[in-house]
């Protein structure tokens, strides 16, 4: 294989999990570019009977399950990839009443894997939630959704109606969060499930008896439900790929980025891909084309796919211009609580916009200095997503950055991405 992708070679047939192998989705779906994860064509949903025929009864959760979770190296699929058992052990150190949350409020404008999973296999997610709640002795089990995600709510309600006989303790609550980028942030959810505003916060002095909240991404819990049944890890990754619309696919984690795009019908190599979403990172296509989408393989390269979002940028586009638009979006989605975020993110967006317009002079250094000063200073990691985006854009689009810094205005066309004013 060459350094750059040669499209036109036949796609490898091994892109998808083989029939019968453990997997999460029932099938791939195509979606509109933004909004909730409602598929363009009706997609299958699994009822309780099919779910039980396929997997057998749900085992009861117990702390002994942590061995299996450790052996599977299960990490959080919401984007941060924290080992699941690390969160369980931390939750077990407290004494206050515990709430376990299945977080289905995926907020990256492009991301739709969690919404797709909830629509296709609600029982698998509910199983994982109940198993975690039982294992940790939780008093409440909550599914947290964006307020506008009617499709996911309907799928969950239908699933809950099918399983009254497993209604035990705790009963599953479905809570609607705000329709906001930060509605899926863990500390915001922890406040909201206890009646507070859904805003990120800093825990100052953890009290031993204070209420505990454990937030897991819904895909993470679906994986818990499979592992608890003694299944091998799926070896798959669920991805949302942005093109003219969005595709949600489950692929063998050894599949390369090139094969993912070829399988989705791409015939031309992009210049770069945005990994993980708007709060993610850029990487040159030549760097990732032949890398597997497996998270640990990416981590070895200093990359992460976060919650599995891949947004390719066409060769004709300007990454600097596109990044300016993304930063404007991120600035607009600040919770407006922390000074470094309230002032820092607009500053980063303005700096990148000025650079794209060829009027920033030596503004690149200032841009990077602003990013460094903002890093790590919010109550949540929202500003850190923006600073990582800036740093990765400056290195990924180094040629464009240099040309713009020398005064060349942007002549590239606009790429409309969901939520981004270009």
């Amino acid at each position, binding site marked *: 294989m060459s350094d750059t992708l040669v499209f036109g070679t036949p796609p490898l047939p091994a892109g998808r999990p083989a029939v019968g192998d453990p997997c999460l989705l029932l099938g791939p779906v195509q979606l509109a570019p933004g909004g909730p994860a409602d598929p363009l064509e009706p997609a299958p949903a699994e009822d309780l009977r099919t779910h039980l025929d396929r997997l057998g009864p749900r085992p009861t959760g117990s702390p002994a399950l942590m061995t299996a979770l450790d052996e599977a190296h299960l990490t959080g699929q919401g984007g941060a990839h924290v080992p699941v058992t690390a969160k369980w052990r931390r939750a077990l150190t407290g004494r206050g009443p515990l709430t376990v949350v299945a977080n289905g409020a995926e907020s990256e404008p492009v991301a739709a894997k969690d919404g797709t999973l909830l629509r296709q296999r609600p029982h698998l997610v509910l199983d994982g939630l109940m198993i975690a709640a039982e294992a940790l002795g939780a008093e409440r089990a909550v599914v947290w959704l964006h307020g506008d995600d009617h499709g996911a709510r309907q799928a969950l309600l239908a699933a809950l109606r099918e399983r009254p006989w497993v209604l035990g303790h705790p009963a599953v609550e479905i809570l609607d969060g705000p329709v906001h980028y930060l509605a899926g942030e863990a500390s915001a959810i922890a406040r909201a499930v206890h009646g507070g505003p859904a805003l990120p916060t800093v825990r100052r*002095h953890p009290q031993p008896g204070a209420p505990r909240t454990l937030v897991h991404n819904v895909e993470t819990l679906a994986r818990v439900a499979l592992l608890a049944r003694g299944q091998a890890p799926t070896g798959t990754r669920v991805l949302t790929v942005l093109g003219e619309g969005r595709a949600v696919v489950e692929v063998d984690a050894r599949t390369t980025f090139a094969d993912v795009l070829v399988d989705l019908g791409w015939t031309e190599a992009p210049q770069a891909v945005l990994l993980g979403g708007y709060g993610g990172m850029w990487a040159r296509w030549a760097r990732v084309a032949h890398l597997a989408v497996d998270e640990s393989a990416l981590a070895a390269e200093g990359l992460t796919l976060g919650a599995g979002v891949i947004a390719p940028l066409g060769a004709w586009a300007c990454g600097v211009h596109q990044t300016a638009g993304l930063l404007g979006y991120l600035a607009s989605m600040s919770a407006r609580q*922390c000074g*470094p975020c309230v002032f820092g993110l607009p500053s980063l967006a303005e700096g990148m916009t000025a650079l794209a317009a060829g009027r920033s002079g030596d503004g690149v250094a200032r841009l990077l200095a602003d990013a460094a000063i903002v890093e790590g200073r919010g109550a949540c990691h929202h500003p850190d997503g923006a600073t990582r985006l800036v740093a990765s854009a400056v290195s990924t689009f180094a040629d464009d950055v240099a040309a713009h810094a020398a005064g060349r205005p942007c002549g590239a066309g606009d790429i409309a991405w969901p939520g981004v004013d270009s």
Partner: protein
Amino acid sequence: MSRAPAVTMRLRVDPVACEGVGLCAQVAGRVVELDRWGYPVIEAELDARGVKAAQRAVRACPRRAMWLEEADTLR
């Protein structure tokens, strides 16, 4: 003689509570400086004099946005 070994302390700010008043940087300039928007940037490592300064910053903050904690406390 029987005093417990010194614990490394860290100055923390709650960025939600902080309104960028800036008194902390005035009373504890050796451990707090302000960014260009007026919000505190805190020295990571506190020596003994740094701890004294940090205590002044904690007391001075009108928003009660600062506190001292042991450095190995989980965030």
